[in-house]
Every structure is written in structure tokens, then in C-alpha cells.
């Protein structure tokens, strides 16, 4: 059934492993070899993978913090402007800007904006949305959701050299080294 065009430019080189421990050792070697644009794919989370891949902490919390502060300030400003400035209106004898009454809205908008910042910030950091990815057109890669563990080094990595990287991947002890091609529109 595979009618996938494979004649695009080289996107990446890929190798696969049968066990998580081989896979993790391979990741440590790729990390130590100094590659930057590479990834590891497994059917389930492998504990210790962040360290093995040398992944640094995410910037997402800072994005969420900004979102939260924005929500907090927006809610406070909105209520101050609406109820105390633009249309002053006394409700059950409370001050025009009565903080205890304002906090539910402040709380809700803080949570809402933080959640949006978290959700969409995660999209942005992960390069989403995107409709397709060259790996998804690769038949061999299908077992990434079942029982295989993949190490993929992308061609855009500054250290990438098709011959040397191929030899390096082969030395990791995986089954085969396979080329992943860019998808070309028919």
C-alpha cells in the first residue's frame, strides 16, 4: 500500500533498537557525540531519557508565568475600569473597587490565561501545528507506537555528514540504518 514518494531530499538517518536499554545507551552516545538536531522515539516513556538525551529544562514555565501575570493584571484592570471608572455603580453597598469581590474573576482569568499559555506554548515549543512529518511516511517507523525504539539524526544538524553519521549510527548496534526522505508533493 505504500505509495509514499521517497524521492525528496535526505531528511534524516534513522536506526532502531529492540530493547529500551540498548536504546538508552545509544542515546547517551549520540548525546556525547555532540549532535543537536536529533530525536528518540519510543512506544512508552523511558525513565531517565531526559538525562540520556541531554535535554535541558523546558522554557514553558516562563511562558506560563507571563500568561498568569497577564491574566491577573487583565482581570484587575478590567474590573477597575468597568466598575470604578467607566460606569461607577454601587452594588450592595460595596466599594467601587472592592478587592474581595474582584478576586474570583482575577483567579479565573489567571488560571485561564496560564492554561492557554501552557497549552499553546507547548504547541509552539514542539513546532506544532504541522500536518505531516517525513518520519510518518516511513514504513519502518510504524513500530514506534508498538515495540521498537528509534534514534533519528536530522540532516540539518551542523555535525551531520551522510557518510560519517551513517557509520556512527551503524556502530550503535541497531538493526539497520535507514534514510528518511522529505516528502515531495506529487
Amino acid at each position, binding site marked *: 500500500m505504500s505509495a509514499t514518494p521517497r524521492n525528496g531530499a535526505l531528511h534524516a538517518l534513522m536506526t532502531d533498537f529492540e530493547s*529500551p*536499554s540498548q536504546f*538508552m*545507551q545509544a542515546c*547517551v552516545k549520540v548525546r556525547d557525540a555532540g549532535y543537536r538536531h536529533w530525536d528518540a522515539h519510543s512506544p512508552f*516513556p523511558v*525513565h*531517565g531519557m531526559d*538525562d*540520556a538525551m541531554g535535554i535541558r*529544562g523546558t522554557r514553558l*514555565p516562563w511562558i506560563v508565568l507571563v500568561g498568569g501575570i497577564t491574566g491577573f493584571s487583565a482581570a484587575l484592570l478590567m474590573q477597575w475600569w468597568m466598575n470604578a471608572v467607566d460606569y461607577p455603580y454601587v452594588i*450592595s*453597598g*460595596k466599594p467601587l473597587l472592592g478587592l*474581595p*469581590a474582584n*478576586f*474570583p474573576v482575577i483567579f479565573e482569568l489567571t488560571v485561564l490565561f496560564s492554561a492557554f499559555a501552557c497549552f499553546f506554548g507547548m504547541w509552539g515549543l514542539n513546532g506544532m501545528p504541522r500536518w505531516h512529518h517525513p518520519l510518518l511516511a516511513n514504513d519502518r517507523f510504524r513500530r514506534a507506537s508498538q515495540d521498537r525504539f528509534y534514534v533519528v539524526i536530522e540532516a540539518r544538524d551542523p555535525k551531520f555528514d551522510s557518510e560519517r553519521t551513517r557509520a556512527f549510527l551503524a556502530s550503535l548496534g541497531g538493526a539497520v540504518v535507514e534514510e528518511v526522505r522529505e516528502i515531495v508533493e506529487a
Partner: protein
Amino acid sequence: MAHTHVPTLQDTRTTLDGLGPRVFGTSLAIGVVGMLAAFGLGSAQGDNLKQFAFAYVLNFAFFLGVSLGALIFIGIMYVTRASWNVVIRRLAEVMAAVTPLLALLAIPVILLAGRVYGWMDPAIAHSHAMAHKVGYLNQGAFTLRWAIYFIVWSGYSLFYWRSSVAQDKTGDLKITRRFENLSGFALMATAICTALASFDLVMSIDPLWSSTMFGVYYFSGSFVSFFAVLTLVTMGLQNSGRLTRIVSAEHFHDYGKLMFGFTFFWGYIAYSQYMLYWYANIPEETAWYLMRSTHGWGKVGLATLFCTFALPFCGLVSRWAKRNRKVMAFWAMWIIVAQWLNLYWVIMPEYSEHAMFSPAAVALFLGIGGLWFAGVTRLAMGNSLVPTRDPRLDESLRFENA
């Protein structure tokens, strides 16, 4: 795994041998000296021990809360079949299992009730507003309820601790299964008793005021205090060369998450209780807050708002803070002081209309705290500090935060 070495119980010391008697003796001495000092300071007031009684209720409420937090924590861990906590669960078990000692420490509360509780004052008890409450708020019913609370709490906490210690020897999996089946009931019974006890112990000081949220208000503060105490106890043991390696930054990260989460929960509850009364503005309800926002108590209240909620919230929000031992130790100590200050703000205005500092309250913190800690240490001696044959111990040792 090639790069990760899963620690085992052989990598560290898991008993109090060599440390227990010393800590027990020191705590006991601090407790006794603190009690005597508080009694001396209280007597010197010349107010028929009234300030002493209020200070006693304050500190009893604080340490009772820590033990109840431990008991509720254990229940939640079994109901959710959590595994991360197993390596530190014995510490919670001994903190909960001192409830019989707290039952002894409750006797002065009952004896001193006349100096603290409004419903003991005949003028208030016979007032029209109390007509429907005197059947519940009287010394006989008060004493009976405390007996029931302690039967429930001690029953469950001793059951957890004894069975868990027994499992160290037999490795019987049925024990874990029994815990899982019974913890739901344990949580319900403990929660009801904790809420009612908070009404009796703290809220009924002013019997004319009531808040249906008061139980969860007391619980949420106590739960934060429990995690703070647990953090410091774990660090103390590690500094003495015990539980090192097996309790890792991953476990401290979870302590931090729980401290952070329940700090926020406390703030949410405290605010909700305040906001509803502020908004409805009914005199009999706002009287309680009026008393706590005038004559200098307002500043104390504002201090607790920041110290108990806003500052630890900001301090613990980051992942880095939760995984940093020094930062965690700082906030754990801070939270204990802040939660204590909050109870001070809740209880002491009923003693003095004007904001005041009570040295007896500080002495009793050491007095009741010392005795409480001596009890905890005594229970921890002789057994492993880790439930060695819990079926989830291995998962707990391997635990990593996602």
C-alpha cells in the same frame, strides 16, 4: 539501565539506632521545660491561667493538626494506590500513631475549657442566641465528643502503624490489600472527626459565630504544616546519615508539590470563608472578622495573608525550588511559623481585644511540640524507618517525576 543505579535499602541506614535515645531525651527535656516555663509565664499573668489556656489550645490545635495530616496522608496514599510515598510512609505512620499521646494532651483542654470557651460562660450559654446550641455545646457533650474523636483517630493510626510494622516481618500482601479496602472509610471517619473537632476546639471559642467551612480551613492549614514537618524530619534524618540516597530529589519534589498545592488550597479556603461573610455583611457573621481586623489584629491578619499564602506560593511555584534542599528547608520552616501565626490570629483575639504577644504561647509550642516529637521518636525506635517489605517499595525507590 546502564546509567541509573536504583538505590537499595542496603545503601543507607534505615533505623534510629544510635540516634533515637538522644533525640527522645532532648525532645522530652525541651517539652517538659517548655511546659513548666509556659505554666510559670501563665501563672505570672495573674489572670487565673486564662492566657495559658488560650495558648494551650493554640499549640494543641497545631500539633494535633500535624498528626491528623499524617493520618489523612496515609489514607490518601492507599486509596490512590500511590507508590512514590512508600519509602517515607513510615515517618507519616509514626507521626499519626502518637494520637494516644495527643489524647492525654487533650485533658488540659477539657479541664481549662471554662477559661476559653464562650459556651462555658453562663451569661452567653443562657442567651437567646444559644438556645439551640447548648444541647451540643456543653461540657459533657464536649468531653464525650473528644473521647469519640480520639477513639477513631487512634484506632486508625495505630492500625496503620502496627500492621505496617507487622508487614516488615511477614511481607504479607493481604495487609496492603486490607489497607486499600479500609482507607476510604478511614478517610471519611477521620475527615468528619477532624471537621467536628475543629468546631469544638477552635470555632466554639466564640459560640455565637459559625462557619461551615471552618473544618476544611483547619484541615488545609494542618495539612500544609504536616508536609513542612515531614520535609524537615526527612532532611534531619538524611543529615544524620539515614535514608540517604533512597529518598531522592524526586521525593522532595513531591513534598514541594504538596506543600505548594495545599498552601494554595489553604489560601483558597481562607479567602472563600472571608469573601462570603464580607459580601453578605450580616453583623453576627462579620463580628468574628471585625474583632480580627481592629486593635492591631488587622496587621497580624495581613501578615498571615502574606506569610501563610502569598510568599510561600511565589517561593514554591518553581520546579527548581522544589528540588533544592536549602530552599525547601527554608520554606518548610517558614510555613510552620506562618501556619502557627495564622492559628494565633484565629484564636488569640478572643483572649485579648488588642493585639498582643504571648510568650506562654511560644513556650507551649516548645512544650507540646517537644512532647509530641519525643512521642514520635519513641514510636520510630526499634523498627525500620522504611516499610521494608511493602509491595510498592521497589517502585518508590525507582520513582522519578515525569
